[in-house]
């Protein structure tokens, strides 16, 4: 056991250090992913305020009975709304996905099939993330409650990506010493625990496993499962009581009249 003591210490230290390091790394990765999601949600909420404001003003015009394409003062509304941080452009599409108004004038008249109103288009907001571009859109309804178009804001998440990169860098810088501390602490803690448990270890060296019987190989080959399990009167508890109380030591075949009746034997 002495020879195995150092090997055991190193193996156990390695396992614990690996477990602790992996757990901390996993926790940090999870934390970063959650933070990423949270930051994106906050940015989406902020941009949703912009879309909502444009929708409200557009629907006020539509409620007066005007057609979407006739709302000429929308250009000014869009320009004012597009001053919000990160906003790249704001557009209004008709039901077929044609751009009627845009803060980027060269895009007016263009077509975007993804914004076309179809049977599966619900009344709620839509969020689409492609690379570092986030698009939020809301359907527009006229005074009769019919969906007649869509308003959408496209934002560039460059600032967000830079913030994320800085946080990622900060976490990496932080994780390296924490994981190193974890490795050293694990080693020290295991050596200390093994040293404090030297009585237990000497027990292990002497003792063949304590009362944890399944840990031990059986001394005689166990009966075949079918034999052990299918005896109609196989009552291990009772048999043991009979043997310990009344049988002389020795193999069952040599026992006297109080031994297990032949019909009970496997």
């Amino acid at each position, binding site marked *: 056991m002495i020879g195995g003591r150092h090997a055991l210490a190193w193996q156990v230290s390695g396992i614990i250090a690996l*477990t602790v390091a992996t757990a901390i790394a996993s926790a940090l990765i999870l934390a970063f992913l959650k933070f990423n999601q949270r930051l994106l949600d906050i940015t989406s909420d902020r941009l949703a305020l912009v879309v909502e404001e444009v929708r409200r003003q557009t629907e006020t015009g539509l409620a007066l009975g005007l057609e979407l394409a006739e709302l000429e003062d929308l250009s000014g509304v869009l320009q004012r709304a597009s001053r919000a941080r990160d906003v790249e452009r704001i557009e209004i599409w008709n039901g077929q996905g044609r751009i009627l108004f845009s803060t980027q004038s060269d895009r007016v008249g263009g077509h975007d099939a993804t914004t076309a109103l179809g049977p599966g288009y619900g009344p709620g907001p839509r969020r689409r993330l492609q690379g570092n571009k986030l698009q939020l859109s809301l359907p527009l309804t006229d005074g009769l409650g019919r969906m007649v178009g869509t308003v959408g804001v496209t934002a560039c998440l460059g600032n967000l990506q830079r913030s994320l990169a800085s946080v990622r860098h900060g976490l990496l810088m932080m994780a390296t010493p924490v994981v190193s501390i974890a490795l050293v602490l694990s080693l020290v803690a295991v050596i200390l625990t093994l040293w404090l448990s030297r009585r237990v270890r000497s027990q292990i060296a002497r003792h063949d496993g304590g009362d944890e019987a399944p840990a031990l190989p059986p001394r005689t080959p166990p009966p075949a499962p*079918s034999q052990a399990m299918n005896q109609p009167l196989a009552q291990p508890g009772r048999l043991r009581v009979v043997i310990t109380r009344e049988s002389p030591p020795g193999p069952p075949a040599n026992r006297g009249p109080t031994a297990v009746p032949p019909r009970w034997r496997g």
Partner: protein
Amino acid sequence: MIRDPIRTLVFRLTAVTLALLLILSLLASWLALHQFERVLFPELRLKAQGVAEVLTRQIDRALGYGVPLAELPGLSAALATEVAAHPDIVYIGVETPDHRILAAQGQRPAMPRRSAVAAPDDLEILAPLTGQHGLEAWLRLSLDPDWVAKASTDLILEVASVILISVLVAFEVLLLVAHLSLGRVRATGTPRAYRPGSGSPFNLVFLRLPVFLFCLSEEVTRPFIPTHAQALAPTAPWLPHDLAVSLPITLFMLIWALSQPLGARLSGRIGRRRAFILAALLSALGLTLTALTDHLLAFMAWRCLTALGYGLALITAQGMVVDHTKGHNRASGMALFIGALLAAGVCGPVAGGIITDEAGATTTLLVGAVLALMAAATLGLLLPKGERHGPPGTPAWHRDLSPAIVKLARNQRFTALMAFSAIPAKVAATGILFCLIPLLLTESGADKAEIGRVQMLYFLFFIIASPLAANLSDRWQIRRGFIVGGGLATLAALIPLALVDQAWGPYLAIALFGAAQALISAPQLSLVTQIATRVRVAEITAIGWYRLLERLGGALGPLVVIGLAASGSYHEAALGIGLVCAGSALLFWLLYRRASPALHALETHP
């Protein structure tokens, strides 16, 4: 009582791991939160400025029409809507220039604390409200200084889950390493010469890690199987939607139950080692094919294949325990096996939920397949190759099946126990835990990690309550009382799920449900063995029938739950299942009491 020194040492080392993990995770989380706050607060402030702009524009428009601010209708309602919509904004008020409050919603932080990342001024936004005569009032918005910490509850719970999983995995690996180390010394006296699987006698602890990994491969899928089936339901429009959701779990349970006799026969014929490896490979194949399919019928077919592998592997592992134990140590051997199962039950759902949230259900299923392959590989390495085969065609409890079940079925107590306790309990366990909880929580907007955490509580409380229930029911000799109590406790446990519409409701309900089921489990097993003795059927045969019948009940669970939910709601289905369990428990009490014990002569004259 002599304690196993290896286990003592492993427990100490696991405690050390836990302590290290807690200290270092706390440190890492605190440092990470500090990093996040630095970026989150400016974003929150920007958003609050957006809210302030929207409100200012609306109020200014009214003021522009000459409406006095004090008489502006709907001002408080508008402020209340914004406070309710943005949990990071705790207060919005309209104040006159001489600081008189005209309208306010929420609680303004009395003294904004100076946070490490935000000065008190950063936590408040003041916007001027201007009318025809210039400045008329101020709009004040206050950010919640503790919002980041409050919003991190989810994160804290996930870190705690990671710690729990790590500790359990570390325990399993440490136990194996300690036994391997001891095995080397025993084999040759020198640590280097020992190799597991080289013809040395088999140590049952070596079975624990493969069983743990194998069960984990299935447990990781628990949080999303019904919702995944729900998503695939449109690919089989002819199948009623409710059936499409419940059928994959029902088929899985059914195939698992029916594969038990087959598994016992197969492992008896080709050997336990080969049978387990084959079953694990089958399960890995099933999980991989499930991951790759996007059609409901194929999904169900591959789930059946996975169930076949799962059932074969588990019955083979139980066969190994039986092979290598005798009457006096079989209970300890089974405890090792069940310990691995329960540990996987704790780790699997929560790990699966986290992976599904971050990488999707397909990745989780593939992770499950990898775990099944790892289980096969570890068993291949750890189990000796030349292990003895069971005699061909003599499965563990299958040989005297028909006479045994006739004898058991004639015993009214056994029938009452099965019909009014074992089957209803399993209907509840499968229906509630694997079917209703994922659907109910998904409906209320929970993510998969949260579903996994709730499912984990069942196993955690089962582990805590089970030994206590077993000891007390044995000591007081009131097993029937425990079974009836467990049935009634199931109803009480499910009441928070049915009636409380709070986020903590499912957590409390499932924790209590796990404890209630633990009250039933061990006493049921004891009664089965007692009845087996009385009707002269081998204990293991009676237990085999008991397990088969309760698993068939498990197959019914999702159908019953979805049937109840279809005629009401998920909440009503939970209550319905609780009432079924409580009613069955009372019926069991009445019938078991009346039924003749049919004592054998030996019982009365020991």
